[in-house]
């Protein structure tokens, strides 16, 4: 099993949820995070003039899935999560050693 961790634009969350759902990927955990990268921060307004904010609001979307689902999910996220501007985000893939469902103590693939 793998964990897909995608850092995405907050406004893309609902469309991605819809598209992932459509393909049967409904289990996920999201976290409000802030990020920086190529997108070099934005300037927000003070009363007069502005100030720079370098950490921008992003959403971290985490899904633990079977190995075979990695590529289709990457495809969906890249297709519907992008605007073409810097700041669209990244997907990180991590190995997962085990999964346990708290309710039933089931383990492994079936627990996801």
């Amino acid at each position: 099993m793998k964990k897909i961790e995608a850092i995405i634009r907050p406004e893309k969350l609902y469309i991605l949820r819809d598209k992932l759902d459509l393909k049967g990927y409904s289990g996920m955990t999201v976290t409000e995070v802030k990020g920086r990268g190529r997108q070099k921060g934005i300037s927000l307004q003070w009363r007069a003039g502005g100030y720079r904010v370098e950490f921008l609001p992003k959403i971290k979307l985490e899904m633990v899935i079977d190995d075979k689902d990695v590529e289709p999910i990457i495809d969906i996220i890249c297709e519907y999560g992008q605007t073409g501007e810097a700041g669209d985000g990244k997907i990180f893939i991590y190995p997962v050693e085990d999964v346990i469902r708290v309710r039933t103590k089931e383990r492994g693939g079936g627990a996801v």
Partner: protein
Amino acid sequence: MLSVRSLLLCSLILSALLAGTAFADEAAINAADNAWVLISAALVLIMIPGVGLFYGGMVRKKNAISTIIFSFAVMGVISLQWILYGYTLAFGHDVSGLIGGLDFLGLAGVGMGVREGLTIPSLTFMIFQAMFAIITVSLITGSYVERIKFSSFLVFSLAWATLVYDPVAHWVWGGGWLQQMGALDFAGGIVVHITAGVSALAVAMVIGARKGFGTDPMEPHNIPTTVMGAALLWFGWFGFNAGSALAADGIAANAFVTTNTSAAAAATTWMFLSWRQRAPSALGIVTGAVAGLAAITPAAGFVTPLAAIPIGIVAAIAGYYAIIIIRGSGMVDDSLDVLACHGIGSTWGVLATGIFATIGATGLLSGNAHQVLVQLMAIAVTWGYSFAVTYGLAKVIDAVMGLRVRDEEESVGLDLSQHGEGAYM
């Protein structure tokens, strides 16, 4: 173990307490005026936590409580200062035009009877004025938020009220020399906003900039809270200005209208200024309103509603560019722009009073050029006095007990380091 002697002592002190209120003749009290000034006092009171919220939303989350509670603490401390000795310093019998005598010490002789020359009880007048003293001290807090030691803030506030506010209030309203000279200040442009704004500059210079000022983002952490604060300010300002008529008369109505008009004109102007630069800023709109309110304060009862429009517009322009210039200079961290909004805004307002006054007084445009000179004189003196005394006072406190918290305390935030609390869980 209470001895008989200590009981006697207690009862002596207590009987002193009981003597405070004279039972004067109530015949001449006008109940309507009394109701109006009392409710106006309540309106000014709600402005004080309003200042706290207005400021509190503009600081970083870790300093939210600290910033908000300054104003609340001031309500405690300066209320007491005022009734014990502040009121008499400001409104006691005039001593050489400079300060009030001690006749009203501990409210001696300040009772339910009518105040001489007015139609309201002395106590009503006293408490209405108390709110002005409190809010002035609370306005200054905006300049040194996020880094001052709470103990030093308290000492500073008490000393400042005594050394700056009380004398200047006496000069302008208590029968002192500026009043004798004919300076016009309807509701506190000189007494409240110039003293606060200029003193804010002085204390900001002494305390120094926040760590990371100019490099780290100093983001306003809760703009709805700031808007809420601004709303309470606009609301309460009707008491501030229209209440300063000290009667529920036509002057009060006029001051009410000019107040609303100037706030509206300045909010709108500031909105367009920020828009021109980028987008209509919400912080800008509410800041504009406050600048417009500060500017109309000295003029409110003296000018017509239409004159309040240019007063508000110029206040917004002056305040806006003052912020850009002061921040751009990088020379001082007047953190929440107290000088720009209150000092500059109201300096313009005091001058504008000399220009536009037509009601109960005459200004430049009614042919009385002299008034402008008097107003300029009052401005210059108040700037100079406020700056010098506050600067010295801040220096002394800094030397004696230190104005600033330690570096780590500042990094962690004052909520935790000064109060052992966290704003949001």
